[in-house]
């Protein structure tokens, strides 16, 4: 899922300090799961901002709503009826939702309330780590299910480098060396001989390098 982190409240205050009518919009999916932008977090932020404005001796209307998602037209439409009541939207969705909101409500300022971090999984409550860089050409079948692009700091296709130390990456002792894990798994699967196969030069044109990407599925378009 998309993992995000709450922006520091000082930063959010800086963004909205001159607003008078704010709608804080949460999202019920990824940002709820990583406890950054769901209904709960919307409530907390709203309460904090109300107190901020009261303390500044300012009147501010601060409302809350949490949509199922902010990356689908249908859900964003749900607030069309009330959008004119606000001078600011503070979206706690990931970068995708914030942008979709801004595109849809073109004349209302939309500000982000979270920092979108990466595609990842929950290792345990409160700890999320990156697993995928959306390169567009998944090689997990060859690398025993571990991605060197998202988990190797140098995205080496033929690792490990000479800095791998006791299974950890040279840049951080807490970071697993992806290639150590790949080797361990190849061993476990009885495929250690595959290690010597040279991975060819990657086609990065389906990655960010190729430009903003799009998927079009004629078969499901109406």
């Amino acid at each position, binding site marked *: 899922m998309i993992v995000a982190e709450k922006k520091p409240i000082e930063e959010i205050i800086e963004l909205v300090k001159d607003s008078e009518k704010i709608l804080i919009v949460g999202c019920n999916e990824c940002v709820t799961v990583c406890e950054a932008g769901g209904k709960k977090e919307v409530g907390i932020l709203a309460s904090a901002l109300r107190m901020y404005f009261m303390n500044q001796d300012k009147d501010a209307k601060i409302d809350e709503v949490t949509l199922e998602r902010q990356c689908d037209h249908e859900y964003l439409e749900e607030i069309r009826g009330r959008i004119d009541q606000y001078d600011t939207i503070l979206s706690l969705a990931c970068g995708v939702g914030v942008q979709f909101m801004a595109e849809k409500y073109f004349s209302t300022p939309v500000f982000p309330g979270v920092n979108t971090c990466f595609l990842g999984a929950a290792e345990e409550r409160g700890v999320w780590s990156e697993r995928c860089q959306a390169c567009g050409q998944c090689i997990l079948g060859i690398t025993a299910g571990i991605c060197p692009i998202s988990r190797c700091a140098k995205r*080496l296709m033929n690792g490990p*480098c000479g800095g*791998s130390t006791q*299974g950890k990456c040279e840049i951080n002792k807490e970071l697993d060396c992806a290639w150590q894990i790949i080797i361990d798994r190849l061993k476990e699967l009885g495929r250690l001989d595959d290690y*010597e196969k*040279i991975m060819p030069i990657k086609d990065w044109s389906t990655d960010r390098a190729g430009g903003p990407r799009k998927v079009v599925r004629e078969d499901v378009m109406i």
Partner: protein
Amino acid sequence: MKTKTPSKLEKILAAGHLAVTSECGPPRGSDPKAITDKAEMIKDHVDAINITDNQTSVTRLCSLAACIRLKTIGLEPVLQMVTRDRNRIALQSDILGAASFDINNILCLSGDHQQFGDSAKGQNVFDLDSMQLIQTIRYMRDEGKFLGGDEIKRPPRMFVGAAANPFADPFEIRVPRLAKKIAAGAEFIQTQCIYNLDKFELWMKQARDRGLHEKVYILAGLTPFKSAGMAKYMKNRVPGMDVPDDVVKRMSGVAKEKQAEEGIKICVESIHRLKELEGVKGFHIMAIEWEEKVPEIVEEGGLYPRPKLESHSRG
């Protein structure tokens, strides 16, 4: 053995001599004297001089320019090239730039992560890794084509090298990794600096068992300790480095003023021991910021004078 390039280093190795290479780090400025002065110190004691490429991700004068500078004073450079900072266009372009000055040796590396240097907030590239860079240069040289498929006018004629680190983890794939680099096209290897001779000999034995020592020229890397502090630093703070306790003890057991001398002694002893090791075809002496000691090490190591090649050598 036949040579495939005009490289002097290749010729020396092909003739069966133990080769000696060393390295110079370019300056953090634009003064060419900083390179030529260092090179002058060592030029009669080595067959080729490596120029490092923004080593440890610290921005320095580029390796290519420094190599060209060496060519202008009649010396044989080894262009070190990391894939951290350049995409495939720049890599191929720089290779042609080097070839245009008849720089005939290249060492292919991935490169230390930029976190270590002065640009931790910068991007890194890694369009290719070191393995793929080796393949690329061989392709450019032997097929005469760019990666994209177009013909190269006057293809590079470079002797292609790679690094090997017998001391990084996991040990069990370090020889398979050597095999992989050979399969990718590496023709010579310079290893990470050796302090754990037992481990190195084990790695070498495993390499010999697979016949790899005959497919590639392996140059043993050595770096003399300047002090016990340096030994401890390298033991504890440098990833992929193996400094055994008894070596640190040996350095610490000597008075401070005598430690530099002890470090050189250890280095020279290693040369003598490794000369006897089957598969070692030369030495890569990395005396970082201590280049003035290279002549002494080479001489004490019994590697002086360096062989002279005839200008019409067969091969």
